[in-house]
């Protein structure tokens, strides 16, 4: 159910020529002679999938860059995709000074974007259950991908995604943007360099959502492809509260579409903890749900005994608190960093100290720079997968009300065949691809 006719390569080139000639002066970081005439080192043609609340910042960012051009938008809600198309065309018309511009297509089906050879890269900002199918299809079609966090709905999806990224050579960024914030990087560097000694305990504040609900059926709004919104997840009657994208609830409350707060904020804070501990290619070995044997806080434990406690209140007003045997680091958004001893936060790095990947601009900019240079992004699919694995295993342990043992090398749940079934979820037809 394509909304607009497919644009031929020739049409696209015509449009591009108009834009390039008029207002787009594209900075060339890597000369086109290096990566080939048609390489994306000049301008990156973008497809945007999922035009809801979370896309707002990404969309504005891409539209604001002269080295990117949005050629297509996609959403299951007619109003959202049409409005995004109108915004894109209006902006490009203004930039080109040509009065009008018709060069952004609006689709319900993301598959139409994947089929377009003139699109280089895709931004995926859907609910979690669509991240993997869309991103994988994009990478298999040779596109680069920015995917919102958490990267996946299941552990198996993550393994596939990481393999696809590596094998097909895609440039992939997970939207765990705290990695691109100075304070979080500095906190991780302090931990990695052993400035607070051996870290034994970490507190992370995730908060909580209200419990999921069983909801009565409501009429599906006009212009909303609800079946496609549900996609691979089990069918439920439509209700507004199921699908809305509220930060405080909506679909984020339901297990069918994510791992609740573990997937929501865990994808940020557990990600930073993984980075700080140097576990980007591994993970914890045990997951204990809150309430099990009187356990007051959801906990996961690394092989060296380091414990991560969710929502322990003594975080000194911070999002994450690392406690070592020689000091502490507390870190939050807004560039907030506190250390014990206090001078650690201003201590200069020695040449032999570990310095972590530092982005020069923002998280999305890092992705775009890497598309041009083909270097790894700051948060690759493997990193996103390992972080999401923690989110999912925490969720599985919570749902099963029992602890899980995990082998991060083999990526297997140990000694619990039924829990192992949760490593992936069956997919509702016809949305069975991954």
């Amino acid at each position, binding site marked *: 159910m394509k909304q607009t006719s497919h644009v031929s390569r020739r049409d696209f080139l015509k449009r591009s020529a108009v834009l390039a000639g008029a207002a787009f002066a594209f900075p060339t970081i890597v000369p086109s002679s290096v990566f080939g005439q048609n390489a994306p080192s000049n301008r990156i043609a973008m497809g945007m999938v999922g035009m809801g609340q979370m896309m707002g910042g990404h969309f504005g960012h891409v539209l604001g860059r002269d080295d990117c051009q949005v050629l297509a938008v996609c959403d299951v809600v007619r109003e959202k995709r049409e409005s995004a198309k109108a915004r894109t065309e209006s902006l490009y018309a203004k930039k080109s000074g040509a009065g009008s511009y018709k060069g952004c297509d609006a689709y319900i089906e993301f598959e139409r974007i994947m089929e377009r050879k003139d699109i280089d890269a895709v931004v995926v900002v859907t609910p979690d259950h669509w991240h993997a199918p869309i991103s994988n299809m994009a990478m*298999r079609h*040779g596109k680069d991908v920015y995917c919102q966090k958490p990267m996946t709905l299941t552990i198996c999806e993550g393994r596939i995604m990481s393999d696809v990224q590596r*094998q097909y050579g895609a440039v992939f960024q997970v939207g765990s943007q705290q990695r691109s914030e100075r304070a979080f990087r500095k906190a991780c560097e302090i931990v990695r360099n052993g400035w607070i000694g051996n870290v034994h305990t970490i507190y992370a504040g995730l908060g909580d959502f209200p419990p999921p609900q069983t909801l009565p059926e409501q009429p599906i709004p006009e212009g909303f492809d609800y079946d496609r919104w549900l996609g691979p997840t089990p069918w439920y009657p439509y209700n507004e509260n199921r699908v809305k994208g509220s930060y405080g609830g909506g679909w984020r409350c339901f297990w069918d579409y994510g791992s609740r707060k573990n997937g929501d904020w865990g994808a940020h804070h557990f990600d930073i903890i993984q980075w700080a501990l140097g576990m980007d290619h591994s993970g914890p070995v045990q997951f204990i749900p809150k309430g099990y044997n009187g356990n007051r806080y959801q906990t996961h434990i690394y092989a060296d005994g380091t414990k991560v406690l969710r929502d322990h209140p003594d975080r000194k007003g911070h999002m994450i608190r690392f406690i070592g045997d020689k000091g502490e680091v507390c870190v939050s958004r807004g560039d907030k960093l506190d250390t014990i001893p206090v001078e650690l936060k201003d201590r200069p790095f020695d040449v032999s100290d570990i310095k972590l990947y530092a982005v020069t601009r923002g998280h999305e900019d890092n992705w775009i720079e890497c598309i041009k240079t083909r270097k790894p992004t700051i948060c690759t699919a493997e990193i996103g997968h390992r972080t999401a694995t923690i989110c999912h295993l925490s969720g599985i342990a919570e*749902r099963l009300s029992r602890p899980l043992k995990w082998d991060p090398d083999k990526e297997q749940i140990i000694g619990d065949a039924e829990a192992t079934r949760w490593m992936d979820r069956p997919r509702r037809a*016809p949305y*069975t691809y991954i």
Partner: protein
Amino acid sequence: MKRILITLTLASLALTVRGADFAAQVNDLIPKLAAADVGSRYEAQMQLQVIASASSMPGNDADRAALGAVLAAKAAAASVPQPARVWIIRQLEYMGRGEVVTALGALLGDADAELRECARRALEKNPDPKAIKVLRAALQKGGDTTWKIGLIRSLGEKHDAGSVAMLVPLLNDPKLGRPAAKALGSIASPEAIDALWKAVDTQSFACESLVDAVNFLLSAGKRDGAVTAADKLYKSRLPSPVRAAGLALMAKSDAEVTKQYIEPSLRSGDTRLEKAAVDAALVIYGKTASATLAALLPKLPDSAKVFVLNALTPDPSAEKAALGCATEKGESVRIAALEVLAKIGTAASVTVLIKAAVNGSETEKNAAAASLGRINGALAGEAIAQQARQGDAAVRAVAIASLAGRADKSAVPSLLSCAAENDASVSKAALVAIGKIGNDESLDSLVRLVLDGKPGAKDALLAVANRSANKSVIGQQLAAQAQRASSQQLAGILDVMSLVGGTDALAAVVKFTADGNDEVKDGAIRALCQWREFAAVKPLLDVAATTGVKLTHQVLAIQGVCRLVRNGASEPSMARVDAALAALKTAGRDQEKKQVLSALASIKDRKAADAIIKLLTDTAVKTDAAQAALLLADALRKPDRGTSKKLAEAVKKANISPELDNRAEQLLRKK
């Protein structure tokens, strides 16, 4: 034998008992799972989920099987309401085994599409081999497109080679082709792979299924099949991302054969293949990858050179090759070379890096400077320090900046010498570097440089002092130096003393506030006004109260007191109030009185409130007093409701303006 029979009988009996218990529990939940009030179903759903989870704990297989049998029977029973059946089957997805297959298999033919779909999903997860048979039979039976897509997916997930014959003809179906290819890729039998190869020219999706197939074969330990398919993928004319995947899989399957593909791929001119070749080389050559790739560098196109350079690791041949690339024609190659030297370079790379940092393009300068800050190979640090000590000034300045970037504290003495030199660029670079990495030990020398009037020395001193954990010791040193300094020199360090603070420094500055030299006196008063510690309040008040004091100095002193009162949250409230009131006494002008009122409003204490209330009748400042009163009243609303009320009522009583009355009234009404 008899014992075994007894055991089996007992086990069977126990199972029956458990089954009966479970049946009772489930029967109780069924009406709730289908309650007319949809919202109330949630609790029952969670109860059933808890029972299912508990029964499926490791070691609980008898319970799991007993509950599975009960749930399967309920799922199959048409008398059970549909919403309850749906939730029951959802539980079976994660705990059902052989005992549920027949019931779920029957549901595959149910008229209710949701029940059918739930049963399919549950069977897909069921590890019992019988599940495959019922899924296969369902596909044979057919149905609408969506239904068939689901069954195809399930058979693929089961890696069911027995369904290949059914799937192959579907490859050309417009709607079933992609799911069929996906399933064939998951099955990855020789027949499935053959079929995919045959379809690849007409169905573009078949190639990704071939990649999936190789991945599955590798995970299943079927290396031979994997090698054949991966090799064919790499050598095909398929799109380069697919060929790149073929090469990546070849590297995992057959290192020897893959070695032959590295150089041609690197020279292909296709960036995906070039990058894939580098990644493959890292896999197959391991520790020798860097040297192997470095040897190829001269033969490669620029894009491949960039990828290779990015991948180099410390190795003499790699460093040599990178140094060669650092002077190539292509800028991207030069930059990649300069960047990688940070990781692999030794003393041998330092000259090239410094030259690029001095003479290169802006991008090269940045890349080289960054690398000089990180390069850590043999004797690199010493080579940079050597360049910092002598030679061309521009080179020395770059080397000096690098020492700061490296936080090389051993270089601080040498940097202090450089800072004292006459060459302005060298001295300035050295002082910037000291500002970044200097420590307490550099303070004496820095103070001397400040006293000598070296440009940039004061900034460096401030930066180092600001970082120091021993500010009082620094204060002592500064005070001692100040006693010996000339009037001209003093001007340079008085404001540093205000930053550093401490008793000795304060005493020294206070002494200078009465100095006969006007310049020194002015500098000292200004330093005192910037003091960070509350101890400066008294001397500041003394300055303000001095007979014949310059108006500027009096104003600055009162401002200094007000700042300390406002920032002195850790000081006793009484001391702050007293300080403010003393400042008020000395304030000759309304402007200063208003500042004092603002400072008083920051003290959450009834004494401050009383002081403000008294000023509500002072014609000159009553409006500002009322503003201050309302500000404080709002701040005290929770901690001291009584005083808050008193302040607001006083403002109302003062009747200064309708707007202020209105604000006071609003505050009084606030809870």
